[in-house]
């Protein structure tokens, strides 16, 4: 097991190098001069621009820039963004906000998705099942920005049950509505996955055997149906954590959440190479780690799977 985890960590190295190189190259090849953009409508002061180019290594060839960037990562000096703030400080500011949002969304989709999916599966073909199936289909088919604005307007503005926008502190209370919007699509998916999985397991031979042993219905459902049905669901949730961390750009935009998505979007627009690459690198690492977590969870949930080699 330990060797397996070690191996997985070693695999992170090429993924890390490949991802940063690719992102760095993409940012490098963005059209337009980022330094010129900094001056906005004002005329470009050539002396200042040249100084800035040297400071951000923009005068160097691409590979040199990339290697200098790698060096800065390993010396834990990520440099500064174009407003002069250290990038490390920017990361430390935005990631906790997005992490809070992602975890809240994950809890929402896990709890409601599993509970609704289980009930729907156990009552297949009845009213509850039909209702949540249609509702989840609707949720899956509507784009997230439509849902976002809809909920922001009805619940946030008209009904006033939650704050329509997020303050700069981004407290848990502020984030309730964005978290629901962010988790909605996955919630519908978790619900359907749980339902299908429950339906499959309900007819398994060992469930019938469990009933034949004289176990109560509740215990049969909890111990033999639910536990087995959760294996694919938890695998999905683990992978989804990575997606939620990175994929919150639209939701963060709607609710003005001061998180990763917002900052990344701004950095891309202004062509701040180092900031973009730093954020994406952290996202890639989070994604890799959450995938490792999923694989370990999988082995823990299903004893037939063992990572010996």
């Amino acid at each position, binding site marked *: 097991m330990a060797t397996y985890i070690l191996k997985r960590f070693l695999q992170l190295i090429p993924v890390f190098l490949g991802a940063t190189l690719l992102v760095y190259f993409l940012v490098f090849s963005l059209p337009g001069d980022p330094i010129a953009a900094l001056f906005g409508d004002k005329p470009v002061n050539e002396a200042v621009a040249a100084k800035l180019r040297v400071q951000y290594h923009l005068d160097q060839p691409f590979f040199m820039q990339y290697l200098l960037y790698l060096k800065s990562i390993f010396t834990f000096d990520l440099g500064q963004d174009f407003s002069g703030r250290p990038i490390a400080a920017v990361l430390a500011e935005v990631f906790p906000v997005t992490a809070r949002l992602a975890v809240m969304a994950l809890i929402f989709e896990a709890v409601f998705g599993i509970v609704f999916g289980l009930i729907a599966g156990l009552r297949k073909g009845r009213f509850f099942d039909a209702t949540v199936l249609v509702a989840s289909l609707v949720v899956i088919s509507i784009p997230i920005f439509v849902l976002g604005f809809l909920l922001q307007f009805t619940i946030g503005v008209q009904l006033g049950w939650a704050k329509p926008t997020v303050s700069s502190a981004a407290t848990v209370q502020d984030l309730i509505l964005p978290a629901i919007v962010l988790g909605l699509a996955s919630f519908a998916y978790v619900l359907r996955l749980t339902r299908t999985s429950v339906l499959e397991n309900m007819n398994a031979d060992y469930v019938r055997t469990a009933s034949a042993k004289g176990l109560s219905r509740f*215990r049969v459902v909890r111990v033999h149906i639910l536990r087995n049905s959760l294996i694919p669901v938890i695998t999905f949730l683990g992978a989804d954590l990575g997606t939620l961390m990175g994929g919150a750009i639209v939701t963060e935009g709607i609710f003005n959440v001061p998180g990763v998505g917002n900052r990344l979007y701004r950095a891309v627009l202004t062509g701040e190479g180092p900031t973009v690459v730093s954020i994406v690198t952290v996202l890639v690492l989070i994604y890799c780690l959450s995938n490792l977590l999923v694989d370990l969870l999988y082995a823990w949930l299903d004893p037939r799977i063992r990572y010996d080699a």
Partner: protein
Amino acid sequence: MNTSVEILEAGYDAERPLLEIQDLAISFATSNGEVQAVRNAHLTIMPGETVAIVGESGSGKSTTALAAIGLLPGNGRVSAGRILFDGEDISNAGEKRMIELRGNSIGMVPQDPMSNLNPVWKIGFQVRETLKANGLPSGPGDVAKVLSEAGLPDAARRAKQYPHEFSGGMRQRALIAIGLSCQPRLLIADEPTSALDVTVQRQILDHLDKMTSELGTAVLLITHDLGLAAERADKVVVMYRGQVVESGPSLELLQNPRHPYTQRLVASAPSLASRRIQVAKELGVESDELLAPGEDVVVEPALPEEVLQIENLSKVFKLRSGFGRSTDFTAVDDVSFGVRRGTTTAIVGESGSGKSTVAQMVLNLLAPTSGKIIFDGVDTSTLNTKQIFAFRRRVQPIFQDPYGSLDPMYNIFRTIEEPLRTHRIGDKASREKKVRELLDQVALPQSAMQRYPNELSGGQRQRVAIARALALDPEVIICDEAVSALDVLVQAQVLNLLAELQSRLGLTYLFITHDLAVVRQIADHVCVMEKGKLVETGSTDDVFDSPQRDYTKALLNAIPGARLMLPPEVA
């Protein structure tokens, strides 16, 4: 399990039946409306008695048993009749009452040990929850005791393992432990050993017998195997298409079957008493011999040439054990035998004996590690691509599972025509003519051509597989467990068909099977394999009448019903 007498003496109320099923009807709600699965079923089990329900798949035997423990699938219901357990009608009892009864009054040992244990919980956990749910002490010691009573060695350690770490036989022991852990008065055993090798089957059934007679448990045994039912049960109930067609004391019913279905079942039950299907010999060389002059002189007929010679065949698989290391596993170890033209040679062995690996190597689907397979004088490993193509035309397989070996997207015509098209034989019209002939040969109606495999029964599908194998007029047919998945009656029909085709077309069969009773019916020669080695070979009669090796004797003894004496006319 003749324990009813002892139970009587022990002072049980033997007057009142423990389980009484009266005019039971069970129906399933399907998209095509209500379907009757069981009609007018009736049976009676006295305390401590063993009663077997015999029938083929789909006869309603399992459905009847599930109704008795209230575990019909969601769309099934008891539509008429009564199920009396110790005098109480439980046919429509509430879920709460059934939960009270399950476990400590009515236990169950299910059919398939592979799918009936929850893969994510340890064996001990699954035993413990049974004890707990029925209010019995459930400490680690109690769990180990229950498991070791079911014949599981080293139970305390084994209880900490997961089902996938158990062999099929051990899992079945665990399931028997669970079924009997709360000492129920009635045990429903639904094909408890049909998924196991014969020798393991015998051990498990013996143990089950011993435990149930010690506990005075009545057993409702569900099986498709008449021999097994007669050997193990006091009474046999025969079900056919949802109805009880006959019931009575086991031996009486076996010796004097009255219903036509039971008669057919008895006649086709493969048991030791049956002989080689005689079609081949009647039409072949030996009938001429009988007419030959010099009655008392046994004329040795000239032995036909050996079409297939297997010489020192071995196959070693490399098992991965991580980090590029591997361990060798010898699946087939120095096996040599020959197959004469126009005869049937059977390879017998339990699962894991390497018999199917031999078949795959003979079919040239798997390269041997060492040794030679000589087909018609040519070493098959020296063939080039073109020659292999020609070789395939002469050697054809029939596989075990007629559900898996036919492409569900191909209709029957296309399935049988495909080999002809692949080998570019004839034009469209002549191929269609050939397919029609083949269907005639395997006794399928020509109307079947436009149908798809899922519209055919198991026996019909296996006929299609045979027709496909015959399409290229092969000389040798490798049958890998070709009849194992079929019900006895269908099995008998298919074996008869194979024997008839052999005599008509002069086919050579290499028959791979775990079922010695089938061997007795079809084979001229037998090769017995154990753990990759050939342990005994000889003519079928020699091997069956005087087996030399202990392993062969154990295999023979393990055939259900082997020890029963049947009158020769029904056997």
